[in-house]
């Protein structure tokens, strides 16, 4: 992949969590509101860019046997950093996201990109990959969050969308709504990519 492809592949070709079916847990858990989805996405993007950077820089130093352990330490450090910064500057959001911020550490996207990309590519490509996949993830989460918030609460980023007569489907902001919404969106994306003549990624 050249630089431009690396920079854009996360927006459609490897769009998480729809095309690259990783990171489903945060996509379900924090998307009850668009704002939470956006915040979570940006936190993941930050961790992804810098974990890719450090791992790419260290890729010749780290012995193969302790590869995964080293990756985990790097990722966990960045996650704790995000936790602290969020608490200091975005406290309400950090309360909303709760244990799902520390859980970024076990988000398969990050370890997956480290193993599949950053550990075998130079720094500038790895950072571009992190940015691209991270922003793709942010877009997806914000989209899912918007749909669920608009239907389930009648608001978008906290602003009222409908007039007062609207009765919200509170189902959408609860757990079953999350699964259903994500499943249907995945189906739509599959149908769309089939129309474009692309092969299915999931089995």
């Amino acid at each position, binding site marked *: 992949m050249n630089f431009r492809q690396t920079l854009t592949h996360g927006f459609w070709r490897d769009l998480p969590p729809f095309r690259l079916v990783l990171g489903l847990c945060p996509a379900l858990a924090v998307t009850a509101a668009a704002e939470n989805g956006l915040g979570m996405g940006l936190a993941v993007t930050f961790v992804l860019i810098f974990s890719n950077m450090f791992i790419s820089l260290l890729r010749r130093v780290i012995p193969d*046997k302790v590869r995964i352990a080293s990756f985990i330490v790097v990722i966990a450090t960045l996650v704790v950093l995000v936790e602290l910064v969020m608490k200091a500057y975005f406290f309400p959001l950090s309360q909303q996201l709760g244990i799902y911020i520390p859980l970024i550490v076990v988000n398969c996207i990050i370890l997956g990109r480290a193993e599949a990309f950053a550990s075998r590519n130079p720094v500038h490509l790895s950072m571009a990959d992190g940015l691209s996949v991270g922003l793709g993830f942010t877009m997806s989460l914000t989209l899912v969050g918007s749909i669920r918030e608009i239907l389930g609460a009648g608001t978008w980023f906290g602003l009222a969308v409908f007039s007062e007569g609207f009765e919200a489907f509170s189902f959408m902001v609860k757990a079953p709504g999350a699964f259903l919404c994500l499943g249907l969106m995945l189906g739509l994306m599959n149908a769309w990519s089939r129309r474009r003549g692309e092969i299915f990624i999931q089995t």
Partner: protein
Amino acid sequence: MLREIARLVLVLGTICSLSAASLAYVRTSLADRIEMQEDFYVRGPALERLFQRPAQELLAEKLTVPVGEEAYPVFYLLEAGEVTGLAVEAAGKGGYGGNIVIMIGLDPRNDSVLGVEIVSHSETPGLGAKVELQGFRQQWTGLTLDCPVALTGDGGRIDAISGATYSSEAMVDGTNQVVLLLRNHREEILTLIGQRSTDPSGGES
């Protein structure tokens, strides 16, 4: 073989110590700000409702009273050199979803309770979460904190929420911690406040 193991340990050790060092640095530089944010968003709303004053003003007057293993945050309201309001935070143990943190506001001149507010809880919505309701919390208003409180089932005056005995008990537990604190440390708290209000620097004791 041995050299390889040494290399593994060295690399992992270096990465771990670098990460620990950088985190410790960030943590110390952000600690004050995090505490301020916590006060503002977690305690601020409760204090505002208790005393009908802007949270910023009330949060500036904070004391921490250590008793054994616990440390109780105390806030106060000063009018013309006299303490007219005191708010004590306590973590009521035994709630269904963990501790229920409550803030009790009282008038120290006659020890009557102005009200109780929930700072944080993780009780079940629709059941234990009813501790937040005005109707339940109202039972605290006007109590005098010279003796421990109890639920009606235990011979006391507080009616438990039906179906949420654990949550109600946690509230009572928190209240009794405040009763004990006032009984044993009342003078100490008032002296601390007195020192602060005469000390122009604000005193960080």
